[in-house]
């Protein structure tokens, strides 16, 4: 208990609290601008943390990262520009809710359940780190291959509308992912000698194009009528309305948090897969699956909790084995070393007050999310008061800036525009966009894990079922595909 007291004293320092507040605001700012990511927020903070003590240094990064992941949901819900691939899983629901004049409910749900997911993930981090890290170490390319297959299958089955159209969209995404030379054999594919294309299709410019630029084009083509006319939200009762959601969906919130933490703790997976799988699980077990994708809050609750829990979960392998769980913890491990908090099982033995302080910072950061998030929603909602004629060019401007910032060249902007036109054409033909995003994000992982597994197994297919965890996830993935087929056959027989 003495250690806990020391840890509390370390965190309760006004300097630390001020740093947390400042980096929280910084994180919100970066996260809510499309194209600026949580990883970027963390990388920008690192040089500043050189001059801080360990606790404020880590506090700055933890707070900024948590805040920017949540803030990515704000432009997603208000303008249909998902800040991260993780929020792309439920952007359709959130945006539909905004169009129906329920942006308060949508953003409130994302905010409150993000905080709940983050806190849940932190509790698991505190209580079960060593055990979970052991499980994470058992995952090799075979297990990840099946996990990615499961994630991609989810994209098809959760998509509203026909699975065939979802499949078309997924294949478009998977194709775009094959461009460039960042593949296992380092072969340049579909680059036509172009230097920029060697780097492949960067998914953030593509995502901004598919969702946001496409929306601008739609407004241009269809005029005021076809374009969405966002209604003004208000923040009154932002929190109280979530109590009802908590009563209605307690299982969903817990399931999302649990699954998110678990997937986040796997170094080869992360918040993206976590959000999609949780959204799919939510739809599968929902009493009203038909309402998903049409502005239903249930998926927001589960997937929103899941991706924030995954962010906390990513710290588990990072702290115990120095293995980054995602791109943010990859940066954090470097900072931990510089601050003398060397990751490893011994991190809990040497200077335990620092680790306890870290845990307290995690809890505080997730609590701080509530008031700061409320403020951000209140400010950001004013965007919707702007008339369409003015708003659309501004969105396009943000698209250009965001796309440029990822590649630091005009290539990102061209990429964004190409995908904008593609997204427009897809939506005009009722092809959903979300599966393409997932294909683009998971395509490289699918290929990489498949190729490395085949190399390791000397080309033996059965190796995909030889390891117990791989066999389990593999069986589940195959079942996901078989069940609808079997049902279809049974229905035809009955008819």
């Amino acid at each position, binding site marked *: 208990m003495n250690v806990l007291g020391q840890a509390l004293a370390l965190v309760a320092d006004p300097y630390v609290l001020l740093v947390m507040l400042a980096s929280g605001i910084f994180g919100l700012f970066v996260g809510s601008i499309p194209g600026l990511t949580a990883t970027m927020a963390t990388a*920008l903070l690192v040089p500043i943390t050189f001059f801080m003590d360990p606790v404020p240094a880590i506090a700055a990064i933890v707070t900024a990262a948590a805040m920017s992941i949540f803030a990515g949901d704000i432009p997603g819900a208000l303008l249909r520009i998902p800040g991260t691939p993780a929020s792309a899983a439920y952007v359709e629901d959130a945006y539909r809710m905004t169009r129906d004049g329920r942006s308060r409910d949508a953003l409130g749900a994302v905010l409150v359940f993000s905080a709940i997911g983050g806190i849940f993930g932190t509790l698991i981090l505190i209580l079960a780190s060593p055990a979970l890290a052991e499980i994470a170490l058992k995952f*090799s390319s075979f297990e990840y291959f099946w996990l990615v297959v499961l994630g991609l299958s989810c994209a098809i089955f959760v998509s509203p509308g026909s699975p065939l159209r979802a499949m078309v969209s997924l294949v478009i995404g998977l194709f775009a992912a094959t461009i460039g030379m960042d593949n296992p054999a380092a072969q340049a594919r579909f680059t036509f000698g172009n230097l920029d294309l060697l780097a492949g299709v960067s998914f953030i410019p593509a995502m901004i194009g598919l969702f946001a630029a496409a929306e601008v084009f739609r407004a241009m083509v269809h005029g005021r009528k076809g374009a969405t006319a966002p209604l003004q939200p208000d923040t009154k009762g932002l929190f109280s309305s979530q109590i009802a959601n908590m009563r209605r969906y307690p299982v969903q919130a817990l399931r999302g948090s649990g699954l998110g933490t678990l997937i986040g703790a796997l170094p*080869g997976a992360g918040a993206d897969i976590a959000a999609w799988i949780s959204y799919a699980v939510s739809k599968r077990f929902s009493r009203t699956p038909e309402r998903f994708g049409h502005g239903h809050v249930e998926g927001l609750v589960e997937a929103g909790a899941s991706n924030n829990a995954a962010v906390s979960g990513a710290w588990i392998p990072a702290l115990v084995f120095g293995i980054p769980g995602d791109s943010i913890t990859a940066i954090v491990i470097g900072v931990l*070393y*510089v601050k003398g908090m*060397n990751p490893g099982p011994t991190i809990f033995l040497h200077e335990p007050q620092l680790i306890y302080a870290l845990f307290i910072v995690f809890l505080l950061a997730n609590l701080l999310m509530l008031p700061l998030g409320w403020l951000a929603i209140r400010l950001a909602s004013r965007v919707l008061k702007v008339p369409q004629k003015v708003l659309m060019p501004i969105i396009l401007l943000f698209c250009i800036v965001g796309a*440029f910032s990822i590649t630091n060249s005009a290539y990102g902007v061209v990429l964004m525009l190409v995908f904008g036109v593609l997204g427009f054409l897809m939506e005009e033909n009722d092809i959903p966009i979300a599966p393409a995003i997932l294909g683009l994000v998971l395509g490289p992982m699918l290929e990489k894990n498949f190729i490395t597994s085949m190399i*390791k197994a000397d080309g033996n297919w059965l190796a995909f079922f030889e390891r117990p965890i791989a066999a389990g996830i593999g069986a589940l993935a195959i079942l996901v595909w078989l069940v609808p087929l079997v049902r279809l056959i049974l229905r035809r027989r009955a008819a």
Partner: protein
Amino acid sequence: MLHPFPPRLPLGRVGRNNSGGETDMNRKTFLTGLAVSAMLAVPGVALAEYPERPIELIVPWGAGGGTDAVGRIFAQLLQDELGTPVNVVNRTGGSGVVGHSAIAGANPDGYTIGIMTIEIDMMHWQGLTELTYADFDILAMVNADPGGLMVASDSEYQDAATLRDAIKAGGAGSFKGSGTGQGGIWHLGALGWLMSEEIPVENLTWVPSEGAAAGLTDMVAGGVNLVPSSLAEGRALIEAGRVKPLASMSNERQALFPDVPTLKEATGSDWTLSVWRTIAAPKGMPEDARAKLNAAIEAAYNSETYQNFMNERGFGLRWAGPEEATQIVAEDDANLGAVMKEAGLAKE
């Protein structure tokens, strides 16, 4: 979107200093310009004292990686030395081709410099680009990390000589290694070692991975036999007792791992390989800018901040001035080219 945030905290202050400096500079440029242009028709750029505006430091690898960390701390220190903002710009992709091309292709006015990594000695052999180290003005080498040889703690090979004999006896495809992509630097490091021991390179199958951490995780999970990456990258797993370091591919033992023998001590092999990072500029920089940069880089390298940062991160400190650095880069270019040709990784 990295430029609007110079790595220093108070954004407002940097901005103010900046504009103040510019006004000053404009007046000075104007006066000297007036005086000199009467006699000589020299472009104004050469007259203003370098540096008069922010410098861009291109990092060819992603934010958050090791090269990015070195780039960012250097930007910070150079900023203090030169008194002008130094902004880090990540130009990633294409195994480093995109970023290196951006450095070499920039205007050689001293306002664009970059971190050049060992991949410059590999990419042209692979046929990815025409670009070689000769297209750069190498200012200094600021870091080098020797390769290592690591196995899982429960591996049956507990020293490098036993492992070597087993690979030699095993035949084609008997061992699997991981830690970088196909033809990546640690892959070449392992192959170079095998060649120095006169073991056919086919005996080691390479399992491509995204970086050493992924390869190490896979090794602990039982996927591959060995990872030849730098020992610093396996530090946490070594300390956790999951990974056993067998050797270091350096001339001397590493300060962080005094119990790990060099490859020479362990097996008698002469093979050494270090992954280095240099600061480079496009060829043809004006002499005054070059001299100023050289002095600033050397001061930054010797600063306590840099030395402490590198030691705590477990990165190897290695200083080489322009001539020595260019020589090391050229030697590695020849060595890596030989390994890549032998292994069939080079484009004919």
